[in-house]
């Protein structure tokens, strides 16, 4: 933490903003123990960024081996490959009260010299004492931690997880590969961050209208599935206007190049 607290607030006041009714929905980072469930952070502490990532791309891959044989292609399906999220984020502007956006870096060693000689520290305060920079250091620290618990010698003794939560999606896994920080002249007063996150477990909370399987998958009052060949979709029913392939196939009318 900087010695003097920044005055500006971040985009989020809490990781609970999603349920605050204020229309905010942060990406929340947590550290879990090796059981994959228990948070290692205090109950009221989770990490939210100064501003949400600018993009989160979900990558999923199947693990399939294909071999050409004299009898044709043989496929071997081995399940899911490693899955990951690619994060791109900006730290948000390094902004200070009375000074506005700042790229001034200062020098802590220079500051110590000033302090030892009775000087003032005012001159050395710059972007390091902004909330955006502070949050950047937080996420960098989480990348370094990555769910590991270390012993006094710095060896990993227990491996836990990082948990990312956003809008009905829970992704449990670890940061992977590089954590790249870019400071460029074209985009001053902030850093661009990119990193990857390996998904070990994914939980989605989806929404749906009510489905009564007894009536929507089966014709009411009968034991006939909705998609039983020969059944004509009722106008206004749940599948009216959608391709009922089973029905159409049975009638022989699908794929037949209707010309009217």
């Amino acid at each position: 933490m900087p010695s003097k607290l920044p005055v500006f607030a971040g985009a989020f006041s809490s990781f609970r903003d999603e349920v605050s009714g204020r229309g905010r929905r942060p990406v929340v980072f947590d550290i879990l123990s090796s059981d994959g469930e228990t948070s290692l952070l205090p109950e009221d502490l989770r990490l939210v960024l100064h501003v949400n990532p600018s993009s989160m791309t979900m990558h999923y891959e199947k693990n399939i081996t294909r071999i050409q044989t004299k009898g044709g292609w043989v496929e071997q399906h081995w399940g899911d490959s490693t899955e990951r999220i690619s994060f791109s984020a900006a730290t948000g502007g390094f902004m200070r009260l009375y000074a506005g956006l700042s790229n001034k870096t200062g020098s802590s060693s220079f500051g110590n010299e000033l302090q030892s000689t009775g000087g003032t520290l005012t001159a050395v305060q710059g972007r390091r004492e902004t909330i955006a920079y502070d949050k950047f250091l937080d996420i960098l620290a989480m990348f370094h931690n990555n769910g590991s618990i270390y012993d006094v010698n710095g060896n990993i003794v227990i491996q836990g997880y990082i948990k990312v939560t956003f809008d009905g999606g829970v992704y449990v896994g670890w940061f992977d590969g590089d954590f790249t920080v870019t400071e460029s002249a074209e985009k001053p007063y902030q850093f661009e961050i990119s990193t990857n996150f390996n998904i070990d477990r994914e939980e989605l909370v989806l929404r749906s209208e009510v489905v009564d399987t007894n009536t929507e998958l089966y014709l009411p009052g009968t034991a006939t599935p909705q998609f039983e060949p020969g059944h004509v979709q009722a106008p206004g029913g749940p599948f009216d206007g959608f391709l009922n392939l089973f029905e159409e196939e049975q009638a022989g009318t699908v794929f037949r190049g209707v010309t009217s």
Partner: protein
Amino acid sequence: MASSRLKKVPAAQLYAKLAAGPGWQREYEIQQGIPIDGSNASLRDPTYGSPFTFRIMPPEVLVNALTSQPDPEAPQIGIMGAALNESSDFTAKRTRIAALRATSFVADTEAGIKRLEALIALNGVLFDPSNSRTSAANVPAISDVTQAANVLLQLNRALQTPPLTLLINPSQLNISYGTIQNYSERNRYGYIFQRWGEQQIRMNVQGKTGAFIAGVKALTPQTNEIQNFGGIGARSGGAIPSTPFATGVQFATKRDSASWQNLMSLFTFYRNNGYIYDNLEQTEAHLFIGSIAIDYDQNTWIGHFENFEWQYTEQNQLGGVEFSFEFVVDIFYDNAQREFQVLPIAAPTPSPSDPLWQQKRQQQSRPEAFTVNATVRGVQDATTTGVTVDRSNATGIFSPFNT
């Protein structure tokens, strides 16, 4: 947005029972609002539009075993057998799946499937030697009745799952055909051509969902309350009541929107990929491998998803989620019928100036009168079985029948 374009979309939960891998869990909340599809439904009309549709194909080996039918597409020994067996017709596969539906292995009520679920729940996890015919020392993948019931349950769920049509067609469909050959080695006479066949077809698909839109059900005229939410909506004497949930076009309606639910249903298909999972032990050792079929442009591609991507970006806060996937094809069927005459195309949207559209409206009111197109120059085409030609009704609509 014309209200006539709006169509009710299938509930997302219809795809909830598809099995998925061990690392993925999902649950469905009952949403309070209604998903709204803002796209033009007529563009995916089954007959006059261009639907892009996915469906689960059950494992061939299971279909053949449970129907006690030999696989008509299985490799044949001998030139004559192979030649007679060769078929690019999708009919045989459809017929066998229909035969499977008629067997006692497929439940014809939800209660039947529930009984299967109960059987699995009661028997618990492997391994129960009392109901197995194998020794405990040599446990195969399907080791007992519980696991067999698990296979049957997933097969039933796959057959029960309705096809999924994208609300908005992909923005780009890239189909790659590749050779396996070599023309780089040479001898004294020049280069030698070596050919080993073709790669499997790869489909690269990119698309974008619609906006995140959700709404509320109409007010009931008697109580001026939102249906199903008695007392929650303000009784404001004609004013639009506030709702306790997000509506309209905004990020907050993402999970309630038809566009997002459609994407997540597609993602569920990716996760399932036609597999019969070992979800008792939660392993990645799949019990059977079925496949996914894509139907588009009178073609059917049967194969598997290779990968899947979608992304949140700050530019698309109101929807328009970009997604892409790669699909590797095992078998490809071109189902288009031979045409004997090129006729004008019907407009997919209503147009009073389009005479074919007027015809379509008339025919929709008497659909039995329009089972034409199964004859070629008046001769019954044996390949288009199941279609009855009613020549008297067709007369006057198509000039070829007037001759």
